[in-house]
């Protein structure tokens, strides 16, 4: 085959060149069956990139001081040269918005297009978590609705009032998601149309729940009726629907925070896979470009340099070590998966009888679509990769004075390390498991939460603070019991704090 002319030779990019690269990369990506949303590539300045950083990567968001703090911090670090900005940010929306920084060279722009516009984009469209939890075509509209709604509330009820509420909601944001139940997709039009209706309905419903006028039938019911009937893991949802004193607009804001939390939930669960998938594809797409003679040797040198620094994993004793690099782990696993399919060893055949020797593209697509970090690692981390990364597990038991190496990369350790690493990406283990346990409906209206202690890990020291936020939302006493797996009480928090002496005296 005759070698073609390279698309570009210099470092400077132009819009024409971006267009050419995008066309070529898109053509190759299609050959690999990467199914994407339409791309919207936006070229921005570094300052705009910092803006994007500080509104959690979204092109628009409601106003809150914490975003300002983020901005100030980013700006400070960037100006002092302590950190570079990311080359790109990509948003799970339809069309899929990708930001390119104007400072990037042509090579970097091409890398970013391959990485974000075809890698991440196809992941957003294909992965089951994103498909079920987020609606890419509605998120921008929804954020616009949220921004306007909150701005309106600020006008009407005052900035401080809204800020306090948002503070409280943010502190519970991690508990504003449904982990197991599948949510219905959200759309902005629906939201708007149903909002008034919901306000009214919820308010009426609440009033019934807290109705104190005695009712004859109620007295005949057994005394010990629980509310809620089942424990509720989504604290914000519970508050939105049941908090006795919230105004309708406050419920709506709780709902907005909850919806945003839900939208970001899949990203937290698929970091390794998402980055791995994107790195795998930018690597393959750009190599294909090179094989077709569309890019120069210089282009490839620059690309490989940034690629290898992105997927570099410092060892645990390096000063640069800050946990396992999700890019490294993800990229290597994807790459390894292809190897297992294309040239399996005996070990691979024994460990992965289903996929060893199968068509690699089918297998990779299947992995991308149907797994999250935890299950992906549990399923596909191979002994070979464990050896290459020299993984080992440290057991840290607070009861023992020393740390212990519990498994290393050897025959007896592979399975255990794989399990340990997968567990590390299980959000259920990373965040304390706290649920709404009961509400004292007939008495002081206090809300009792239950923390199910996992591996004997107690709650961190900012819990008291979070309790105060909960108290602000609920309006009545809050109790939080940490319960051991055997049902014994480990310790408990109260807001307002309980006066121990008072209780003892009575």
């Amino acid at each position, binding site marked *: 085959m005759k070698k073609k002319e390279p698309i570009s030779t210099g470092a400077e990019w132009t*819009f024409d060149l971006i267009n050419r690269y995008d066309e070529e990369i898109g053509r190759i990506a299609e050959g690999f069956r990467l199914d994407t949303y*339409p*791309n*919207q590539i*936006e070229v921005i300045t570094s300052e*705009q990139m910092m*803006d994007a950083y*500080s*509104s959690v990567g979204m092109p628009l968001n409601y*106003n*809150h*001081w914490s*975003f*300002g*703090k983020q*901005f*100030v*911090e980013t*700006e*400070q670090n960037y*100006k002092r040269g302590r950190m570079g900005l990311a080359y790109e940010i990509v948003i799970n929306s339809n*069309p899929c918005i990708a930001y390119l920084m104007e400072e990037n060279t042509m090579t970097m722009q091409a890398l970013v297009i391959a990485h974000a516009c075809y890698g991440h984009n196809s992941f957003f469209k294909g992965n089951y978590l994103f498909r079920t939890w987020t609606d890419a075509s509605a998120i921008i509209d929804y954020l616009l609705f949220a921004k306007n709604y909150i701005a309106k509330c600020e006008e009407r009820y005052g900035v401080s009032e809204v800020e306090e509420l948002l503070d409280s909601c*943010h*502190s519970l944001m991690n508990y504003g998601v449904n982990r197991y139940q599948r949510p219905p997709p959200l759309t902005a039009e629906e939201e708007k149309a149903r909002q008034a209706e919901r306000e009214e309905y919820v308010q009426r419903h609440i009033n019934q729940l807290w109705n104190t006028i005695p009712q004859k039938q109620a007295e005949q019911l057994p005394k010990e009726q629980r509310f809620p009937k089942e424990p509720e893991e989504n604290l914000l949802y519970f508050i939105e629907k049941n908090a006795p004193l919230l105004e309708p607009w406050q419920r709506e804001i709780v709902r907005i925070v909850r919806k945003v939390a839900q939208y970001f939930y899949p990203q937290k669960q698929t970091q390794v896979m998402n980055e791995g998938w994107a790195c795998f594809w930018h690597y393959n797409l750009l190599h294909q470009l090179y094989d077709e003679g569309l890019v120069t040797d210089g282009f490839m040198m620059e690309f490989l340099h940034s690629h290898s620094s992105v997927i570099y994993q410092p*060892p*645990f004793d390096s000063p640069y070590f*800050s*946990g*396992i690099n999700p890019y490294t782990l993800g990229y290597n696993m994807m790459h390894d998966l292809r190897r297992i399919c294309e040239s399996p060893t005996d070990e691979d055949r024994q460990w992965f009888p289903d996929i060893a020797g199968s068509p690699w593209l089918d297998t990779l697509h299947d992995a991308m679509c149907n797994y999250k970090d935890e299950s992906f690692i549990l399923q596909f981390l191979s002994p070979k990769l464990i050896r290459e*990364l*020299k*993984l*080992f*597990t*440290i*057991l*840290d038991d*607070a009861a023992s004075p*020393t*740390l*212990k*190496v*519990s*498994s*290393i990369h050897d025959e*007896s350790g592979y399975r255990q*390390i794989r399990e*340990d*690493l997968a*567990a590390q990406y299980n959000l259920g283990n*990373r*965040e*304390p498991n706290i649920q709404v346990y009961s509400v004292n409906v007939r008495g002081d209206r206090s809300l009792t939460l239950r923390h199910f*202690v996992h*591996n*004997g*890990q*107690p709650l961190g020291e900012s*819990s008291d*603070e979070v309790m105060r936020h909960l108290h602000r939302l609920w309006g009545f006493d809050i109790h939080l019991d940490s319960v051991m797996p055997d049902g014994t009480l480990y310790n408990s928090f109260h807001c307002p704090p309980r006066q121990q002496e008072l209780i003892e005296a009575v």
Partner: protein
Amino acid sequence: MSYIIDRRLNARKKSTVNRQRFLRRYRKHIKEAVEDAVNQRSITDIDKGGQVTIPRRDISEPIFHHGNGGVRKKVFPGNKEFVVGDEFRRPEGGGGGGGSGSGKASNQGEGEDDFTFQINQDEFLDFMFEGLELPYLVKKQLRDATEYETRRAGYTNAGSPDKIHIIRSLRAANARRIALSGKERRRVRELKKEIETLEARLPDDDASAQIATLRLEIEELEKRIHRLPWIDDYDLKYNNTIRVPVPSSKAVMFCVMDVSGSMTQSIKDIAKRFYILLYLFLKRNYKQIEVVFIRHHTHAKEVDEQEFFYSRETGGTIVSSALNLTADVIAQRYPKGDWNIYVAQASDGDNWDGDSDVCGKILQSRILPKVQYYAYVEITTGPHQNLWLEYQNLQQGWPHSFAMHQIEEPTDIYPVFRKLFERKTEGAA
């Protein structure tokens, strides 16, 4: 299909609102940092931005997370010599990354240093003005350091009626009339020529009939020419004026302060704020400002700023020594024609008994005739002494260039300036 959009020219400063919210929330911390900066900084670079540091724990956002303790496992990369069953001591703190705690905990460990960021000049001044109770207009004036002058700059086609340039407008009207009537006038000329040739053939009936019709046509054409508006909207020309920034002339500011034993550091800090305000005010009005620091107890001495505010002296107080020195410096270095001279004197009111009337005389004869403004502030909560009484007499003689005020706390500083500002805003209007 991809869309490529250039967003670089989109609105900037999208995060401004969030930044403001952040500053508002931590106003207490920022205020402290600004106060510190005011006390440490030189007067002449007071209106730069500043660095603010907030303890990390004060700005953390609380969430439920795992505390220390319990059993946990963590996987690390890059094993070198460990084998199963190796045990070693827990590393101290979260620092080495050796293994205690989750990734989150060690991030927090690193993040222990305080949260530091920059605020810009406007924000800095805002926080500094807080507590001085300056009216908004004055704050604005202090911030806009450039002065503008209106200058003529040619002519425009749009403007307000009072700026119409009559000659240009009529000239334009004339030109328009000439341009629009060209065809008609050419025809008139042709017709007149024709009439002339026809007149040569007179008395021919046919010719005279023709002449009559031609005359009619000429009349028609002239009517049409006449119907052109004499002046039209788009003939109007207006004088154009533009605002150009102009540097104003030079000013010198004398800071005179009593540094005798009775002046405590807090009194000096109030005085410093007073000088800062005066400096900022002058900076708005003058391009070039020099500051002369003169301190005194029984002798006066010209010093640098550091020594002025922070070195301690003891002993009696003779104010006239400083006034004499001031007058000397003015005479030697700042001729009245070239410099706008401002003097700000701060004192706790003490003076040696026999000295006050000397002060009055020096001011009367050597200083007040040469200065734009002389401000005396007495920072004390006690009763007034003889210097105050002496100065009160002076005030009647120099109502426009002499002001005196007692200051008990920072909020009292502003009224001293009110008079000065009043005069200046009148001048600007």
